[in-house]
């Protein structure tokens, strides 16, 4: 299934909105589009409000984004996570490593706060 990736810029932050289901078929495409958007030292808000399904293939993309942020001293905030995806991230021990916000506005606030 195709997923849609929309990129915009707000306050020098790259905001990436993903819509669709992230599974083994769609995750590689998401990875290809997403990772180049986080510049070294940059800030990125990943808006997952339009994602109602994410399998471990999607967690792998989040892991790669996280690692890229760590090595490049960039910052990432996840916004709009569905409850079910939050559950999956909790069970797998992913959630505590990410900064999460209810929506993009709050994610931008979190980034400004540092």
């Amino acid at each position: 299934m195709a997923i849609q990736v929309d990129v915009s810029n707000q306050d020098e932050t790259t905001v990436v909105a993903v819509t669709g289901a992230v599974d083994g078929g769609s995750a590689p495409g998401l990875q290809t589009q997403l990772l180049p958007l986080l510049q070294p030292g940059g800030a990125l808000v990943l808006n997952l409000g339009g994602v109602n399904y994410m399998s471990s293939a999607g967690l792998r993309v989040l892991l790669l984004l996280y690692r890229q942020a760590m090595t490049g001293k960039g910052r990432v905030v996840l916004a709009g996570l569905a409850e079910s995806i939050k559950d999956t991230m909790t069970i797998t021990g992913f959630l505590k490593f990410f900064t999460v916000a209810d929506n993009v506005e709050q994610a931008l606030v979190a980034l400004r706060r540092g």
Partner: protein
Amino acid sequence: MVKQDIAADLAALPALRQWVEQACRDAGLDEAASYRLILAVDEIATNIVTHGYAEAGLSGDIALTIERTDRTLTVILEDGGVAYDPRTRSMPTALDLDQPLEERDLGGLGIFLALQGVDRFDYQRCDDRNRNILAMNLP
């Protein structure tokens, strides 16, 4: 009851999830339990497609069966790929799951999500086919 042959192709995963989602709705399974079953079926099917068939240079399909009794909703996936019992995969320990993401090995995470998400998981090997059985208790 649903009986459906699904191409062993990652592009077929959304259709597979839709079959399971519909069965969950018909059975009155709540949203959280439905999501866990759908995720479990998707993870096992993804494994069959990538490891059972593609990496082994094989092609084929996955036979999906969904059965419902008064007490359980059962999804059975049968495939002719490489023999593989997901239960033999060592599960990440609490310590593994607590490791910083920088150091995490993601192998087996899908199987972990599948096995811990359902109320019952079983595997059988019969007639040179893998049979993965995933079941949820009904309210």
